[in-house]
């Protein structure tokens, strides 16, 4: 039962008691005091109920808005369609690339190993293998299209997550660095950085210079290492 109703019920009971023609002045005083207390309680609980009600309304509205924004993210579409499709496209790129590489390398090896002595036959063999190589290079067009689709899916997810974060006022959690996973630890310890974007980060010429500076295969001392970073 809401607190305001309880106060009203107590108030009614007091009124009934008061109307029952009590003669004792002290009891009447107590009843009067109790009546005042009940009024105060009613006022207090009414304001309390109203404040809680407003709070609950705000929370309900927030939950509803969050649900709408999550729905706008279309998480099921991302989970069931876009991400699996992107994964399948990338796997297809790997497979297509492997197949094309196999054909190209086999053709090149065949030419390198061709011991045909008749010029016309040798030329025909070489031309046939060159055509195989040229045909196989069409994988680049397909791979490009597949990768473009994956990039599109990533942009779609990025846009929706960014909008969600903006609308909901989401901020990145702070409070120190995140715990390192076992894979991250291994990558850090083994210096597994992967290929750099846009070509090698350190060119072959610079690497050669580092080895030349160190003097053949001699161990690189700390001074030499430090000089690499000057």
């Amino acid at each position, binding site marked *: 039962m809401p607190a305001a109703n309880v106060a009203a019920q107590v108030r009614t009971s007091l009124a009934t008691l008061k109307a029952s023609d009590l003669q004792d002045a002290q009891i009447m005083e107590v009843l009067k005091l109790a009546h005042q207390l009940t009024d105060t309680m009613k006022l207090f609980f009414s304001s309390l109920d109203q404040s809680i009600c407003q709070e609950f309304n705000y929370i309900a509205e927030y939950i509803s808005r969050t649900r709408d924004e999550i729905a706008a993210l279309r998480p099921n579409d991302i989970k069931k369609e876009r991400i699996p499709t992107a994964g399948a496209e990338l796997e297809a790129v790997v497979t297509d690339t*492997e197949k094309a*590489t*196999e054909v190209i*390398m086999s053709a*090149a*090896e065949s030419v*390198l190993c061709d011991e045909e002595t008749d010029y016309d036959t040798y030329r025909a063999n070489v031309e046939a293998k060159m055509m195989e190589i040229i045909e196989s290079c069409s994988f680049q067009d397909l791979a490009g299209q597949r990768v473009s689709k994956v990039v599109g899916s990533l942009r779609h997810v990025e846009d929706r997550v960014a909008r969600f974060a903006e609308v909901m006022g989401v901020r990145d959690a702070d409070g120190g660095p995140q715990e390192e996973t076992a894979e991250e630890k291994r990558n850090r310890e*083994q*210096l*597994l*950085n*992967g*290929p*750099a974007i846009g070509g*090698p*980060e*350190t*060119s*072959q010429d610079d*690497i050669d210079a*580092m*080895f030349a500076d*160190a003097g*053949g*295969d001699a*161990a*690189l001392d700390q001074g030499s*290492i430090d000089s*690499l*970073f000057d």
Partner: protein
Amino acid sequence: MAVEMTMPILVVDDYKTMIRIIRNLLKQIGFENVDDAADGQEAFEKMQKNKYGLVISDWNMEPMTGYELLQKVRADEGLKSTPFIMVTAESKTENVVAAKKAGVNNYIVKPFNAGTLKSKMSAVLGEF
């Protein structure tokens, strides 16, 4: 001392295509006695059974990386003098420095060609 063109060379890479490319480049240079391994662990086991005149290794492999292989080889009394060339897409200066400190003889960054491979092999083994 003249380089023995029939010396066995161990190529370590987890991509069969890359092993095939390096095999072809080595053949073009004149080395045909080539063995291969798919990661550092397999390479180390092969090195304990066979003697190789040169190891050409990738860096990024599972379960044992080329960097770990290099460290294990240099810590092994019987293998520590084996010439070791790293051929990798890891091109950060910290990688080159770490490999050098671990005792690598030369370092080739991918992609590369037969000329680069030959010049680094010559720098390590001597002219051939």
